[in-house]
Each structure stands twice: as C-alpha cells, then as structure tokens.
C-alpha cells in the first residue's frame, strides 16, 4: 500500500516536471526563432523610420508608423477599458455584493464575451463604424479594441477583488466608511497587484490582436496625427510582411515580431517593478 502511494507520488511529480519543462521549451522555441530571425533583419532604420516607397517590396524604411500606431491604439483602448471596467469590477465586489444573482449574471456574460473571437469584435466594430458614419481610423480601432478587452480587464481584476477577505470589508464598514470609500480605499489598494496584472493582460491582448483592427483601424504608412486618421498596427505589419513572397520583406516580419514582444516585455517589467512599492501594504 505504502509502495503504491509512493509510486503515485513519483508519477505525478514526473508528470508535472515533464509538462512544466515542455511548456518552457515551447516558449523558448518561439522566442528563439523570433530572436534569431528577428535580429538578422533588425536595424535602427526599422524602428526609427516610416516605410519609404517600395518598403513592402524590399526597399528602405522602417515600421515606426506601426510601432507608434500600436502603442496609441493599445494605450488608448487600455485607458478606455480601465475607465469603463474599474467601476464595474469594484461595483461587483462592493456595491452589489449582496445581489449575488445579478453579479453572477454579469460574470457569466463577461466570461462569454471573453470567449468571443476577436474577428467578431472586428466585424461588430465595422458595423458600428458604418452606423456612426466614421471611417477606418484610430478612433474606430480604439472603440473596437476597448470592447474587446473590457471583459478581459474586468474579469481579471474581479478575480483578485474576490480574494479580498470579508473581514476587511466588515472592518471598514464598522469604521463608518461608505461603499465608495471601501471600494477605492480598501479594495482597490488591497487588489492593486491584481489590478496591474489586469491592465497588462488587457494591454497585451489589445496590442497583439490583428483581427479586431483589420477592418476598423485601416492601414497607413504614416503616423496618425489625430484619432480620425487611419493607423498602422504591428500585428498587421507582421501579417502584411509575412504574406509577401519577397524574402527580405518576410525576414523583416520577424523583426517586427521581435519589436512587439519587446514592447510587451518592457511594459510588464516596468509595471511589475512599480507594484512592488505598493505591495507592502497588503495584508
């Protein structure tokens, strides 16, 4: 009996090791390819210049337009998602905490939205554009991507807010705090690392998604000067370059992918470091 248990234990331990290692290997493999191929095509020109004429046929220039466009788009829509999502997430956990069925319904709907493929949001955004009579632009892109990442942001933040202990809420109530004070002072602070994670997750999805901006943001060789201009994005830049038959252009797609990965990495590191300062107060 004892021997069987030991065997079981050993089996699962090895299973976990194998799975963990294979996940890490896949990650390293992908990163390896991007870095190896990307570095070869990478140049200062790539990140400092807009595409020149004939860029997509292998001539000079860079993808600064897509880098800046993507940052505008993802930054703008993450900000909008934060504005829309924060009250909902806090409300679900503080103001409406006694309305379990109502909150449960919201959670279910948000989870369903999370599962909707981004191309559907793209199509919806496109329909919305036609209705609002706006053309493919940064604004339309931001609206679509916001709709797409808002459920992700809310649910990610919500999951952390749910872990705030009931006793903390009772303690704050018994001091005479009202619900809004509890939401912003107690819950928000206590769940701050989760909030940063939620923002990052939303930003990452927003900057990396091609399908939702395919119809809505348009594509251009220039950096957008206003929200009404169309904008290039990194995922689409990668897509257009990869689908080219010319080897130099194809190679540059990897450089673009490397840039996209680096942006996400840099932003995560910065925000992780900045949460460390706030984390100390948490129970």
């Amino acid at each position, binding site marked *: 009996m004892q021997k069987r248990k030991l065997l079981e234990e050993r089996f699962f331990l090895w299973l976990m090791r194998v799975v963990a290692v294979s996940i890490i290997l896949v990650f390293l493999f992908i990163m390896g390819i991007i870095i190896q191929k990307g570095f070869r095509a990478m140049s200062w020109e790539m990140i400092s210049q807009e595409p020149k004429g004939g860029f997509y046929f292998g001539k000079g220039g860079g993808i600064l337009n897509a880098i800046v466009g993507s940052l505008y788009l993802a930054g703008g829509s993450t900000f909008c998602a934060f504005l829309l999502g924060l009250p909902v997430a806090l409300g679900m956990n503080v103001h409406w905490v*006694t309305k379990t069925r109502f909150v449960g319904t919201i959670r279910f709907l948000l989870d369903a939205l999370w599962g909707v493929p981004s191309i559907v949001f793209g199509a919806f955004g496109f329909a919305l554009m036609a209705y609002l009579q706006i053309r493919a632009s940064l604004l339309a892109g931001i609206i679509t991507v916001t709709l797409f990442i808002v459920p992700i942001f809310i649910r990610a933040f919500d999951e952390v807010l749910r872990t705030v202990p009931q006793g903390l809420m009772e303690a704050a109530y018994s001091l005479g705090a009202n619900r809004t004070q509890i939401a912003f002072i107690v819950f928000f602070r206590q769940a701050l690392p989760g909030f940063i994670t939620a923002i990052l997750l939303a930003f990452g999805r927003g900057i990396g998604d091609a399908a939702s901006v395919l119809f809505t943001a348009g594509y251009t060789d220039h950096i957008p000067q206003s929200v009404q201009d169309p904008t290039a994005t990194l995922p689409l830049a990668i897509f257009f370059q990869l689908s080219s038959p010319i080897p130099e252009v194809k190679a540059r797609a990897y450089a673009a992918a490397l840039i996209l990965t680096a942006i996400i990495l840099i932003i995560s590191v910065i925000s992780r470091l900045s949460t460390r300062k706030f984390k100390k107060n948490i*129970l």
Partner: protein
Amino acid sequence: MSHIPITINKKPKFSKMDVPSDFSIKKETEGEVPPIIKISHFNVHAGSTGILKDINLKIPKGKITVLLGPSGCGKTTLLKCLNRLSDLHPSLKVDGQITIDGEDIFHPNQDLTRIRQKMGLLSQRPFPLPMSIYKNIAYGLKIKGIRDKKLIRDRVEKHLRDVGLWEEVKDRLHTPAARLSIGQQQRLCLARGLAVDPEIILADEPTSALDPISSRKIEEEFLRLKQDYTLIVVTHILRQAKRLADHIVFMYFGEIIEQGTPDEIFNHPKSEILKQYLESGH
C-alpha cells in the same frame, strides 16, 4: 408570530424546563445600570433554518457583557446584527427589534454610518486596512470629517497609547500595518475602532488567533476600557468569560439559555445545558 416563547426544541435531551422562562429579566443586577442596548423578540433566519430565535436581551451600559456558548450557536450573528453587518448577508432574514440608546437600528431610514460608528468592531482575526499604521487610525477620523493635521496626530498617539501600542510602534508609524505581529495588529484594530469615538465595543472572539501573552494584553485593555465604553465580548472560552465578564449571556443553538453574573453562571448554573457546557469546558 415571533412572540411565542420557544417551546419547540429539536434537541429534547437539553431541557430548559427547570428554568423559569423569563427569570433573567427580573434580575436585580439589571436594575442598577440602564441598558444601552435592548433586543426584543429578535429572530434571524437563513432560508428555513433559524439562526437566532426570539432573543430578548438588555445590555447594561459601562459593563462587559460576555456572550458565551459553543461554536455555531449564533453569538457572532447576534453581534453582527448589532451594527447591521448582517446587511452584507442577503440570505439572512431579520425580524424583531434592536434599540441602541432608544433608537431602532433596523428603522428603514436609519443612518447606518452613524450607527456603525457608535460601535467599534474587533473581529476574530485582525484585519488592518492596507495602509500604514498611522493611516489605519487616521482613516476613521478622516471619515468623520476631521481634517486638522495636528489633531489627527494627537488622536493617533492617544489611541495607540490607549491600547499600549505606542511605545512599540512610535518609530515606525509610517510602515505598513501588515508588518506588525498578529497580536499588535489586533491591538491596532482596537485602537482604530476607538478612534471613531464609539460608545460600544463589539469583540468577536478577539483573542482566538492570538498567543496567550497577546490575549492577556487585549483582555487587560478591555478591563481598562469599560470605564468609558460598553463592551460586548463573544467567546467560547470559559476562563476568559470568568476573567472579563460583569454579565454573562449563555447561548445555545440560537437561543439564550441563561444569563446572569459570573457567580450565578459559574457557581449556580440552573439549566442542564449550561451545567454540561461548564463541565466539558476548558
């Protein structure tokens, strides 16, 4: 409907027949001090199960009242109803009346903030707010609308001294409260509760997570605090009840079985249940 005295008892082996049903209300000890809290015909249901059944109780002012009883007998629920934290549990259905200083706390237009600020709550485990030691205490003052920095500083010091924490933390007031030991956190929570100027302190097994020395400190605070406050302490520890109580209320399965002075409860228990509880007690 709820006015019928409890005769239906699912656990027949504990009979209260030998106790006159309202003996406690006529106790002379209650006549001396005016009650600050009056609970009458108070019931709490969760779905079809009754959690509290026809509670009638007067809490004397300026004394320590101990709610004694085994786990799950409704002591905590009763305590939480007093400052309407029961509102956070929509499944709890409440009827009956609780008045504090003559005010009905379940009145639909009741100002909950004011009612709750009349009572400081100390829970089983300390829950310091996610901020510094200083701000933990200053927060309650800020809620009350006190903006004067110097006044806040003085009050923070006063309340930390009240709970004997000042000497331990005066050099690190602006460090996170979460870094204190659990015993210090519990005293911080007490100080935080005192800062909103309550009349009553509700303590829900306040020492259950603490080591004996920290527990003793909390108990000493309680004995000192009763000069200025009314304390209601929930506990299942007999010795703690003995050390603290001026008045003991023994509860069992959502009912008040017996109440009286520590001498009456410990030395002359009337009901079988209480006798058994005292014998098995620790």
